[in-house]
């Protein structure tokens, strides 16, 4: 099939990480077309066995991230015309994660690391007590707010070269969540968080290359959050020894 300006030549990954390959599909080009629209069109019109993951389609759920022309992106909010290479598109599963099939990755390692980094709520009060009053102008609240819009899409994790070279490294998303909770007045376990991110695969492995911050679709700054954790753990290191 010949390619023309009304048609996209889409290479989509098929199979698993090791034995998979790219398969070329020709998809009609439309205005305001997103990468997820393209993948869905292939699945609905050309090959019903193409596996991929999505849910909300509006950039809220963090389910649909994929590698698009070699770059991790949220596909539901990425317009084809902004990332097209000529009339070609290459769509692949996210880097740094196991592939289940085709474009769907196994997110378990990503979420397991959130738990390892103590990226879970440690309440300060019971449900019977009154809700804590939060000062929105406090410095710590501002730090917590800076990372609170993370949608767990794993784009930063996929972009991180340190994760690529050290599969056990906790990664930017889990560390940013840890920093958010560390600064949250409603979280009771600051020491547990610092302990969790100070291990052999914790925040000190970050080289501050900044890919996480460059590619975060919500324009968050995980690199700054990790720098905050490094500073907090350094302070804690001296306190323990004084």
């Amino acid at each position, binding site marked *: 099939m010949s390619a023309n300006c009304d048609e996209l030549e889409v290479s989509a990954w098929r199979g698993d990480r090791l034995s998979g390959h790219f398969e070329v599909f020709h998809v009609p080009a439309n205005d305001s077309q997103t990468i997820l629209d393209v993948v869905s069109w292939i699945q609905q019109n050309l090959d019903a066995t193409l596996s991929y993951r999505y849910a909300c389609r509006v950039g809220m759920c963090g389910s649909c991230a994929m590698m698009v022309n070699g770059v991790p992106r949220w596909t539901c909010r990425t317009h084809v015309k902004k990332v097209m290479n000529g009339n070609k598109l290459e769509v692949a599963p996210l880097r740094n994660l196991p592939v289940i099939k085709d474009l769907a990755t196994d997110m378990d390692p990503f979420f397991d690391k959130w738990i390892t980094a103590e990226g879970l709520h440690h309440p300060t009060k019971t449900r019977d007590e009154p809700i804590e009053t939060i000062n929105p102008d406090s410095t710590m609240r501002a730090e917590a707010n800076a990372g609170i819009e993370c949608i767990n899409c794993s784009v930063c994790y996929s972009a991180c070269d*340190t994760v690529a*070279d050290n599969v056990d490294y906790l990664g930017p998303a889990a560390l940013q969540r840890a920093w958010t909770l560390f600064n949250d007045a409603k979280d009771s376990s600051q020491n547990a968080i610092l302990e969790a991110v100070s291990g*052999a695969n914790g925040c*000190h*492995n970050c080289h501050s290359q900044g890919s996480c911050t460059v590619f975060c679709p919500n324009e968050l700054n995980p690199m700054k959050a990790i720098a905050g954790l*490094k500073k907090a753990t*350094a302070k804690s*290191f001296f306190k323990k020894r004084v």
Partner: protein
Amino acid sequence: MLGVRLYMLQRLTALIMAPLTLGHIVVMIYAIQGGLSTAEILSRTQGSIWWLLFYGSFVVAVSLHAAIGLRVIVHEMLGLKRLALNVFTLVISLLLLFMGARAVLAVTLS
């Protein structure tokens, strides 16, 4: 494979190395201005406890700092882990310490 202890050790040794490196450069520039000979330099360094402490502390800091840096590179590039990585770090550190101490003692012992 870099926990908070090794991270802090590398940062603290960097803090030690920075002024010592500047001091070394200043001394080198001073030494070549007047065309000091090797014998003249050695006559000033040999038997000097201050030069022993100056370069000795630099060697100790370097042997720790560089070994930790190489540990990270070797882990990420070659995949060395756990015991092998710890042994590698220790061997590099001791090797640098031995080589550096040998050089420092050669120019400071009378």
